[in-house]
């Protein structure tokens, strides 16, 4: 028994996240029994990745503040201020906290026609399911599960998203959620194929589907190598997260938020952040595939100073930063575009996007075959 624990601890110790800046404090804490073990556990790379970055903690913080960033930014673009009064000297920074609390303490209504159990289970299930793909995304060199099939597994998990949304709509059993759900299903097929082909193009290019080595291979960012794949991926991400101009399934003015129409209270709160979760996962994937993941550009002085101090966190920080930029772009789309009709969305998915992604694949094959890129 003792032996087992010791081996475990030594495995953990051999694979710790190093943060030189925090080292003095950690050093002190390590000497305290139990606390020391706890810290070793948390700093163990897989656990750190799952719980802190890019996993739960960073995800949670993003979910709490990203809507605020989005609302503020949209406000700016639309000649107004956005949330402000709640703490005016921080520009309304904790607005989402208030919204969350409000949802938390609000009644959850299960209407007569709903399938009660599924109606209540789906929001929670999907909240968790949507976080799973994060396990495979490396933030710098911190990753929970490293696997040569990381991308394939992630894809499989991402493709599960719509299933949950269909579940929400189906359990609600109302007219608008029915129409919305059907729309979601249609859109799902329209973007999924090109989404997968775009990723395939990158796998061909890198010659591996291990996320960590993909990041390592990007001495030139993927977006520069195959911009077409990046474009196809980005559009597919916009479709997958139901962003305008493809906000077809949840069209407020048409089907009154579609699958979500009947949800209230904390159940809706979860659904509300779900779309940010989705965006986070897809943006993270995009960062890894196209933007060099956690690789940091060299900025004189700053890099010299900070990189050694932050250690592993340095890469993680860049990863999060890039992800936020991708997410912001994704969300700002809504201030620029009106909404397509379902059939137009479908024809873009099956037409232009499929074309784009196939071209992207061809480009990758040509690059590899032509020996321009040596894997």
């Amino acid at each position: 028994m003792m032996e087992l624990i010791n081996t475990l601890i030594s495995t953990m110790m051999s694979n710790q996240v190093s943060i030189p800046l925090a080292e003095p404090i950690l050093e002190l804490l390590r000497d305290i029994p139990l606390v020391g073990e706890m810290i070793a556990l948390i700093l163990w790379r897989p656990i750190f990745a799952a719980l802190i970055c890019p996993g739960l903690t960073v995800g949670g913080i993003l979910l709490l503040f990203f809507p605020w960033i989005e609302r503020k930014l949209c406000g700016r673009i639309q000649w107004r201020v956005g949330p402000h009064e709640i703490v005016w000297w921080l520009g309304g920074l904790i607005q989402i906290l208030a919204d969350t609390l409000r949802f938390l303490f609000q009644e959850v209504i299960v209407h007569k026609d709903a399938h009660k159990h599924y109606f209540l289970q789906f929001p929670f299930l999907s909240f968790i399911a949507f976080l799973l793909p994060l396990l495979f995304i490396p933030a710098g060199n911190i990753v929970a599960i490293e696997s040569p099939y990381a991308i394939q597994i992630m894809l499989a998990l991402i493709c599960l998203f719509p299933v949950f949304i269909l579940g929400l709509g189906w359990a609600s059993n109302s007219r608008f959620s029915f129409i919305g759900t059907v729309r979601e299903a249609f859109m799902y097929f329209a973007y999924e194929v090109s989404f997968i082909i775009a990723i395939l193009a990158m796998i061909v290019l890198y010659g591996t589907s291990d996320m960590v080595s993909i990041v390592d291979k990007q001495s030139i960012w993927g977006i520069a190598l195959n911009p077409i794949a990046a474009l196809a991926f980005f559009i597919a991400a916009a479709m997958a997260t139901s962003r305008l101009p493809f906000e077809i399934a949840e069209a407020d003015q048409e089907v009154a938020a579609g699958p979500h129409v009947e949800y209230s209270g904390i159940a809706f709160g979860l659904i509300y952040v779900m779309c940010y979760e989705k965006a986070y996962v897809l943006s993270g994937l995009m960062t890894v595939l196209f933007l060099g993941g956690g690789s940091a550009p060299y900025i004189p002085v700053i890099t010299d100073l900070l990189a050694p101090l932050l250690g592993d966190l340095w890469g993680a920080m860049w990863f999060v930063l890039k992800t936020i930029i991708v997410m912001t772009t994704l969300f700002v789309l809504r201030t620029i575009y009106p909404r397509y009709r379902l059939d137009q969305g479908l024809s873009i998915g099956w037409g232009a996007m499929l074309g784009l992604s196939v071209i992207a694949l061809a480009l990758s094959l040509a690059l590899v075959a032509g020996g321009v890129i040596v894997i």
Partner: protein
Amino acid sequence: MEEGEQDRNIRILHSGVFSPLRRWGAKWSLWPCHFVTSCCGVELAHAFACGFDGERLGTLNMGISRQANFIIVEGTITRKMARALRIVWEQMPDPKFVNVIGACGQRGGIFWNSYNITRPSEIVPVDFFVPGCPITPESLLRGVRAVQEKIEGKERTTIKFNKVELPSGGELEERTVPTTPKLFAPTPEIKLDVKRSVDWDFGKELKDLLRKGLKGLYESITITDVNRIAIRATQEKFMEVAQRLKDIMKMDHVKNVNVIEVPHERKYVMEYMVSSYSVDELMPVIISLFTEIGREAEPEFPSLTSLWESANYSEREMHDFFGIEYKGNKGMNGKFLLPPEVDTPLRKDFKIEEEQYVFDEEAPITTPIKLPPDLVMPVPEETLEAAEENDEMVACIGPHHPGSGHLRWIMRLKGDAIVEIIPDPGYVHRSMEKLAENRLYIQNVPLFERANISDPFNMNLGYVRTIENALKIEVPERAKYIRTIMAELSRIGAFFYDCGIYSLFMGHSTGFMYAWAIREMILEAVVRMTGSRCTPSFIIPGGIRRDISDYVLDMTDNFTSAVHKRLKKYEDIFIYNPVFVARTKGVGVLTREDAIRCGLVGPFLRASGIDYDIRKVAPYEAYDKFDWEVTTGDAGDCLGRFMGRYEETKQSLSILKQAVDVVKEMPRGAVISEEALGEYKEASRDIKGHLYHAYGNLVLPKGEWTTVTESARGTVLYSIISDGESNVPYRVRIITPCWMNLRGIIEASKGERVADFWAIYGSFGYFPPEADR
């Protein structure tokens, strides 16, 4: 409202361990449920648009009741809407709060004695009232703050009443008690064809032509005014005359369907006003065809929908109002505009409450209003059955839906295609026509303006012009120009209103914000001119209330160029947005024939290729003095309709500029015609203090007076029937453009995809309070 509901929600917040957190969360996260009930909604939208930005307070407008916790009741709640209000409130999760804005929501405001008004405070528990008609955005936000404070637990009474003892003795006692100033003739003589000698040569020709064409069918043909001809026919020959008018005179649409009840003569006068879009010379001419029928318990009359489909909805409306059965019209079972419990309200024996000038201590200020007995608004059985048979789905959109406006659309869908759309209007029907019969002519000025507060000047102008026409008042030149300026400002404002709503329907919130930013500037100009943002009631018979200052003129001038700049940005973000173009091009096409058949009006008619603009066809005010063009198109699709109005707005800006230039050069002088003022001539530059003296006893000459005015969304027709004795109108008929365009929406949506409905609906700029009146 049930027992104990009043403070329940506040109590919920104040209970439990987590009470401070609950309160804090609820306070900063009041999401108003997007429930537009009436015209105050215009100002509500301003409060949440970029000018005032209600989101600063953490209140994010949310379309869905389940996710909101705050209702802002916008003004009037009619009986029909009362059900919806209660349902929406019940759908919302606890704790939830209600703000009522607008005078209408408190005691009915200007509609206080309407037969279709309820009080929201009797339906749902209200947390705060914001007064005003309409409220200003600032006061609305203040209302939100008040609710926030209430949640925190602060008591907030903003108005305190003091009881004062009136001094007895002296001057006060000598005054007589005022009695009702209204004079009703007991047995008025109602005559629609009062002859008027006018200088109208074409009219004489036309009359001869009509005589020949209708030989032996008519009883009399009278020229009642320039461009107005009245034909009296017997009931038997009525159909035939109508047929001839259609065939020979090319009268292709109905402008108005009217019924006038004359109880003391035991008769109804049935009237149709027809006109022609296909013959250019006949465009300004309105022929009124009427006959009399006996006043039986269940009167019947043949419907003219087989000849003119444009008469359809107006006939159904008359069926509601008078209980007349139009044989041949399919919509005769059930009510159209009215809630089920109100029957034939426009009959003279249906009495509404009278204004009281002296209060009885005991009597309530307004009589309590009975609430509708049940909360259901069922879908017609036939529709459900038909849908069932053909394997279709029936979806009801509205009246509470993020994209419905204040009416209900019943859609029959087959997959993604619309089989049929059935409108269910009347949720904002506030019985203007009935109220107008019980008010002085001058009191009706603000009343009719409320039909459409996004285009107030044109509503105002139309009514006032009718009175001026009847009294043959010549308006001073300066006033004419200023009225033109106002009408054009209002037209531009209404266009941007519709732009904003259209952008929202398309899911484009930035377009909404940009459009409303421009609207905000227009309102600023209006405020400086008149002192009111949306309801100035500035145009009065004989002119305008007072002159406007040079400084405001300069500002209006600058404003025209400022708008151009922002327009550019709006163009970039919305109008030329590829997605917008893709959504609207070729969608909802109405051909020229369709447009005429539906009796469309205004820019929507012009978009289908008919060159009909009253400002050109029968110029009024100063429109013939400017250099401008009518914009027409022939695509007839959503994009065409929108772009047509857009071009028109550019023309309006040019008219505005020209008019401002002229007014600046013009010497100051009277702005109210001295004829109209009578013995109060000194008020001709400013009516202040003399309004009721000068106009209180206005009596129109006997007859029917009809004018058409080109409002922002099309022709608005006022027809006043006066008995020549009473100082209240005997009957006022107002046909607003949206009411006529309703048919257009239905026709254009047939066979299109579901999502296209919003593209079509938005392109028509439908404003429900205007349509329902």
